[in-house]
């Protein structure tokens, strides 16, 4: 039997295609209702997927990267991803829940306890996807500091690369603080020792004393160490600077290759940067799936027509049958994939009811969850030892 694949689904609005909300089965009126998100995550769980991610941003959606466009023919508005994940946590038992957080504009202290708490509510199935928020208009929503404007159109130029590196260095500090806070309580710190009247052994609580260029954080966390010890940290990257963050700070990196060769090259570059640190690398793919290749292509054409524009993405757009997708996933030979359904719920159910059974027939995907799974456990990762625990 071949190695097992890992699969995640990236949930966003009515799907990743901007025309998705206008399709017959779309539920655009429900995007801000709990039922909608519960239905999607429960469907993903029926497919025994490893995880779902929830997209987020601290600004409105826009077709124009880096600026608002005030288009009225697109989904506008979204709910906080951590809270969506928390809302579905008690309803699920098997699937990993990975909300996006915007490290540039939020407090690592708050996020650390939020993800730890999600891990308690989901009994060890929490992760987090750390994203940097670079858009100048989002900075104006916070107004806490003057920033040099990041210009996406000049991303290749040295000054923009320097700026990008600074944002990602701040992101690396952020992840370091979050991780230290998760470790700031040893697992057995709560002792409830009636004889001495002590609820905790305070020698097992640790100040993290983080001092960095952008901020300092004292600790310890107010929340005890979560069930997984360290919930899964993930990030998406498209080039060298984000790859460095993925390599040095995350457990799982999402990347966007266009071919098997690119997938292999990216994956080995990250392994090289990680210098022995274990990091999984998954490819992102936008998927349009139907029973025949023609039906999938027709639907993609219809989505483009509804959106009034031919859809492009940072990730490869795959339109075809679940079996063809299974071929591609095996050919690319990565440990896992994060699939972005172009249209919800259609492409999600194609994954859970088409792709998953196909992969199961091929013997490369689980047929059930282990009992009381943790997200780390699903991915074959150990529960990390606490950095503050003395031997």
């Amino acid at each position: 039997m071949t190695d097992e694949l890992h699969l995640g689904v990236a949930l966003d609005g009515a799907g990743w295609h901007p025309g998705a909300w206008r399709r017959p089965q779309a539920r655009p009126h429900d995007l801000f209702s709990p039922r909608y998100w519960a239905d999607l995550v429960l469907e993903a769980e029926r497919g025994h997927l490893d995880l779902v991610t929830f997209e987020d941003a601290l600004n409105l959606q826009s077709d124009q990267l880096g600026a608002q466009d005030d288009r009225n023919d697109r989904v506008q508005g979204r709910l906080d991803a951590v809270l969506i994940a928390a809302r579905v946590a008690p309803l699920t038992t098997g699937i990993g829940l990975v909300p996006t957080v915007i490290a540039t504009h939020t407090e690592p202290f708050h996020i650390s306890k939020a993800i730890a708490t999600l891990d308690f509510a989901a009994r060890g199935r929490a992760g987090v996807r750390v994203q940097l928020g670079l858009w100048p208009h989002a900075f104006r929503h916070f107004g806490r500091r003057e920033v040099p404007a990041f210009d996406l159109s000049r991303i290749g130029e040295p000054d923009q690369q320097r700026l990008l590196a600074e944002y990602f260095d701040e992101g690396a500090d952020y992840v370091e603080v979050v991780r230290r806070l998760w470790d700031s309580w040893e697992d057995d710190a709560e002792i409830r020792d009636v004889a001495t009247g002590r609820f905790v052994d305070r020698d097992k609580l640790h100040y993290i004393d983080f001092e960095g260029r952008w901020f300092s954080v004292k600790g310890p966390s107010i929340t005890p160490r979560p069930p997984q010890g360290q919930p899964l940290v993930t990030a998406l990257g498209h080039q060298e600077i984000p790859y460095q963050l993925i390599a040095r700070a995350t457990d799982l990196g999402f990347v966007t290759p266009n071919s098997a060769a690119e997938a292999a090259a990216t994956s080995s570059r990250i392994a090289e940067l990680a210098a022995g640190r274990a990091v999984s690398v998954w490819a992102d793919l936008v998927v349009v799936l139907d029973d025949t290749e023609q039906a999938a292509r027709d639907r993609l054409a219809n989505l483009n027509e509804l959106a009034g524009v031919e859809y492009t993405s940072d990730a490869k757009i795959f339109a075809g049958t679940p079996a063809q997708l299974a071929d591609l996933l095996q050919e690319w030979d990565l440990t896992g994939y994060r699939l972005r359904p172009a249209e919800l719920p259609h492409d999600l159910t194609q994954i859970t009811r088409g792709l998953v059974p196909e992969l199961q027939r091929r013997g490369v995907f689980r047929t059930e969850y282990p009992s009381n799974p943790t997200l780390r456990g699903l991915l074959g990762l150990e529960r990390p030892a606490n950095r503050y625990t003395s031997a």
Partner: protein
Amino acid sequence: MVKQVHLAAHFPGVNNTTVWSDPAAGSHIEFDSFKRFAQTAERGFFDFLFLAEGLRLREQKGRIYDLDVVGRPDTFTVLAALAAVTEHLGLTGTINSTFNEPYEVARQFASLDHLSQGRAAWNVVTSWDRFTGENFRRGGYLAQEDRYERARTFLQTVNELWDSWSGVSVVADKESGRFLSEAGPGRFRHEDRFFDIEGQFNVPRSPQGRPVIFQAGDSEDGREFAAQGADAIFSRYATLTEGKAFYEDVKGRLAKYGRSRDDLLILPAASFVLGDTDAEAEELAHQVRRAQVSPQTARNFLEQLWNTDLADFDVDGPLPSFDPAVEGDLISKGRASVRQLAKDPVALANEWRAKAEAEKLSARDLVIEVTGRQTFIGAPATVADRIDEFVQQDVSDGFILVPHITPDGLAPFVDQVVPLLQEKGVYRTEYDGTTLRDNLGLKYP
């Protein structure tokens, strides 16, 4: 119709209300504890569940305070998860206006309101200190005199963000391709001493329009802040005389802001001990007090007022004969310690010594005496009568109950006292509406 009683439940936090040493005490961190607590409150038709907040672990003599429950989950995350396992219960989170930013907090509460279908509430608090600020990268801390000013402008800004989608609805017309009733939603601009922000808020208007606003402070500024903009006050006055005075004072301030007396609910925190008879409840209450104030807790409490290390002090003997140290840093950090509350520590120490001598109390007994008693002690009928009496006499509009056992301490109240209040016709037998505003009888903004 007689005045109706409102009830809510406070999940005990990190103070010595919680008797964690009781064999019946469970986890204060596992989600199941919160779920059981919330479902019990909902079974009793409570208006809401209330969570307090702390953003830094308390310290005494430079070390983490370890005698009470230590640690708690993240407020927003727990409340969003509880929305999945309850249907009617309001979800009230205490969130600080100093160590957060308006865009993010407005978004979190609006999201919680959507995800709970109209059950979100915010208790606005105003910690300001440098000690807590050490956990945050941004803004650090405030001068104490600025804290209500920042809170006021923070709340005003958050209201502007919530209102920024007024008149814009999700039409999602698949035929015409129009998603919103108007393009370019959520525009805001706010500029003052604390915030200089502009742009577009990205959460559509939530079921309650604005989540319910609670306020907990008690200072002159705090009362004024509440009268101006809060929907409910979480107060600490649960006794007849003090409660009535507070109630009158705060309700009297509403008119100048163009608000009526029904626009602001006054809900004190209250603890309770039930027994089969009043005498049995009294005896049980005595035991609970002893458990809440262990010898170590009593010593730590006295250290806070004396501002002195009393490590070798015998709490079964008399109070320290020397006076509190009035100079120097406070020995206790991260709590409103006795010392911070006492205007004149030496005078208070003298008062306590006189009381201990007159009533022949040991130091620990004295601490048990002065740190308050359970608000409602008695057989269920006694407690139901007392609650009804307090509400009819305008001591409050109801109570936020804090049981001393986590998470099951609420159940006896729900099973034994709630039915008696219902029989009196002063308590609901079903929820009034679908949102927290409906159940609290508050207007929609």
